[in-house]
């Protein structure tokens, strides 16, 4: 286990001159109090710089060396800085010194190019060479896992990435988790044994080629191993290309996350503009329809008059038709009267017509009659029917409702468009002067990368299948060779067999260990989470394939959205669980880890700290964690207290004790 002993800073960031923190040897917590802008994050960065030679700022961007030296010291002509970290690991004492100083001949450095960096590692007082030094440091604390030891606010977002299986950042963190948990030991063994197995098969084929009896099979085996070498080369090329594309995608995701707000605004603006385009089309279509309907709208105004006229024509027609009927009857009667006068006998009753009746009949037959009128009526009736036919053909539809609906719809669309235009103007105002081209370039590059990854992955699958087929053919040839091979062949066979079985064992072990670890990490994170959370309805955490942890409600459902505070508690639970299960252990150094937590959670977290790692260093401000409160909570596990003293805006000193709160 890595244990910090002492951190010594010289002109690093706000720390002017020499500043020292001694970490107590006993297990427990060291607290360094410092108000905002005093140098808590710089302290975390100093440890990072000592271990990995890197200075990280917000958004994981590298901080220039030239900006890291103390400004007041630089003003006095003392440029550069030095960090010395003393630590213990596996019973050995180490002292790691990193110096950043102006290059020879540079009296007033102006950029990073004017500085030279040196690193020196002493192990038990012996200075290690550069290669040995880097190997030793990589073994003690690989940079990829540093996020689990050096905790700052940036981590919270990274843990959220673990819940999104498709996220590249999430996959990279999951890989780092597997690294801290020791899985690469097994995967590297699997890879190395696979290579050794292949070499042994090659030897086996060479031995077979030397023997007359087995030459043909040996040649075949050599040919197959050659084919497999080509196939693996191609597979490796594709896998490397995918890995590279994925790495780029992850970096791009990180960069795009930084412009997330801009991205959201631009996406909203583009969406609104698109919707307004659709609204324009809708408004134009409605306007055309309205024009069309309005062109015939006068028909509606004639409707009442037309109906009145229709009724009058219908009435007149009915009258004429009735008169025509009466005229037909009158004509029949006249005929009969004429016959009666002529024959002097009634054609109906066959009685004789008296002279009196005859005189009356003469008067009636001579008088004007309905039949004469009927001829005139027929003409008028014909005219009226023609007019009625024309009137029936006229359809003066009343489109008032349709017109009203079209106008209302159009007005709504115009208002909606105006609202959207207002919002677009608001967005334009917010992004005024911001470089949008970078965002669009990133977006387009991101989409291209996704396409590339899909194509490359499409090529990997058949390559893997081809590899399996070659392996099967090799196994078949080996089987046949072993039936006919001699003593020399037997030795090679044994070697190849041994490598093959070892490779299978380590392949199975990777899957088995991974599964066991996931279960253990879930159980340990749950145990810690239950202690940390103040919500009694949360029963624990559930782990996913990439070590992302979801909060589980006691009713068995997953909590879909969680607050920043809950995220914080989950992250701390994961860190504790990883520390417990990792072959690689070390101190946890946390920069302002309690600022998002309420009093109850702060109390729970502080009490749990000594159980998360053997050595914990907290960098906090006093209102985040009151010194007296910390002492009560940690009791004997609080091993040391330091505070940062402001001498000036560019000059901080570190002193033992708790300063103002003492």
């Amino acid at each position, binding site marked *: 286990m890595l244990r910090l002993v002492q951190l010594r800073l010289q002109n690093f960031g706000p720390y002017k001159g020499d500043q020292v923190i001694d970490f107590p040897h006993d297990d427990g917590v060291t607290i360094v109090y410092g108000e905002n802008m005093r140098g808590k994050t710089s302290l975390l960065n100093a440890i990072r710089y000592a271990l990995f030679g890197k200075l990280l700022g917000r958004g994981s961007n590298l901080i220039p060396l030239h900006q890291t030296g103390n400004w007041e010291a630089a003003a006095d002509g003392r440029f550069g800085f030095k960090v010395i970290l003393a630590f213990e690991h596996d019973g050995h004492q180490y002292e790691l010194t990193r110096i950043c100083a102006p290059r020879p001949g540079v009296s007033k450095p102006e950029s990073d190019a004017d500085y030279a960096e040196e690193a020196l590692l002493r192990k038990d007082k012996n200075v290690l060479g550069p290669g040995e030094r880097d190997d030793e440091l990589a073994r003690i604390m690989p940079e990829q896992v540093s996020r689990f030891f050096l905790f700052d606010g940036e981590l919270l977002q990274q843990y959220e990435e673990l819940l999104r299986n498709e996220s590249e950042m999430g996959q990279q963190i999951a890989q780092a988790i597997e690294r801290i948990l*020791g899985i690469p030991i097994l995967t590297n063994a699997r890879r190395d044994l696979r290579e050794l197995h292949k070499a042994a098969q090659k030897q086996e084929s060479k031995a077979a080629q030397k023997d007359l009896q087995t030459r043909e099979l040996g040649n075949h085996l050599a040919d197959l191993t050659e084919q497999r070498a080509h196939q693996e080369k191609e597979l490796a090329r594709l896998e490397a290309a995918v890995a590279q594309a994925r790495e780029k995608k992850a970096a791009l995701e990180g960069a795009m996350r930084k412009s997330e707000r801009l991205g959201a605004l631009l996406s909203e603006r583009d969406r609104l503009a698109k919707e307004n385009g659709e609204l324009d089309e809708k408004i134009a279509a409605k306007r055309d329809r309205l024009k069309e309907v309005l062109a015939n709208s006068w028909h509606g105004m004639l409707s009442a008059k037309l109906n009145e006229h229709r009724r009058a024509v219908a009435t007149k027609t009915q009258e004429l038709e009735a008169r025509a009927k009466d005229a037909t009857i009158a004509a029949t009667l006249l005929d009969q009267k004429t016959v009666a006068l002529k024959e002097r006998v009634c054609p109906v009753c066959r009685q004789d017509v008296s002279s009196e009746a005859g005189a009356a009949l003469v008067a009636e037959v001579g008088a004007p009659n309905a039949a004469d009128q009927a001829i005139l009526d027929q003409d008028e009736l014909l005219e009226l029917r023609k007019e009625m036919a024309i009137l029936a053909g006229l359809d003066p539809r009343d489109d008032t409702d349709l017109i009203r609906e079209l106008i209302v719809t159009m007005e709504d669309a115009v208002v909606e468009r105006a609202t959207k235009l207002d919002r677009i103007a608001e967005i334009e105002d917010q992004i005024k002067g911001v470089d949008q081209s970078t965002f669009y370039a990133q977006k387009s590059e991101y989409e291209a990368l996704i396409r590339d990854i899909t194509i490359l992955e499409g090529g990997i699958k058949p390559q893997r299948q081809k590899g399996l087929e070659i392996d099967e053919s090799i196994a078949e040839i080996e089987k046949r060779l072993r039936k006919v091979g001699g003593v020399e062949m037997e*030795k090679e066979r044994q*070697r190849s067999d041994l490598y093959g079985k070892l490779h299978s064992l380590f392949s199975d072990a990777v899957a088995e260990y991974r599964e066991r670890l996931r279960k253990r990490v879930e159980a340990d994170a749950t145990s810690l989470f239950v202690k940390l959370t103040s919500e009694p309805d949360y029963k624990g955490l559930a782990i996913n394939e990439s070590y992302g942890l979801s909060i589980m409600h006691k009713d068995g459902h997953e909590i879909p959205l969680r607050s920043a505070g809950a995220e914080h508690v989950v992250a701390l639970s994961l860190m504790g669980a990883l520390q417990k299960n990792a072959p690689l252990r070390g101190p946890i150094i946390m920069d302002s880890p309690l600022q998002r937590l309420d009093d109850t959670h702060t109390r729970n977290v502080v009490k749990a700290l000594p159980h998360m790692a053997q050595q914990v260093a907290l960098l906090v401000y006093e209102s985040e964690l009151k010194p007296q409160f910390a002492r009560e909570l940690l009791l004997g596990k609080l091993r040391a207290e330091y505070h940062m003293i402001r001498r000036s805006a560019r000059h901080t000193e570190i002193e033992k004790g708790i300063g103002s709160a003492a």
Partner: protein
Amino acid sequence: MSDLKDLSATVEDLRSKKYKELPSDLVNAILAIEAEALDSLKAARQIERVIDKWLSEKEAK
């Protein structure tokens, strides 16, 4: 890597159940090499040497 207890236990568990013919000391030696190795090529050579030695000893017996 300081504590390989769980990792070794997992591998040993599998070996004893599924790969009994593989010697435990050889498997542990490979684990130890990989736990210390930073360079794959060096690790492979070390494993090769361990296995050569084991095969020679077996043959001598």
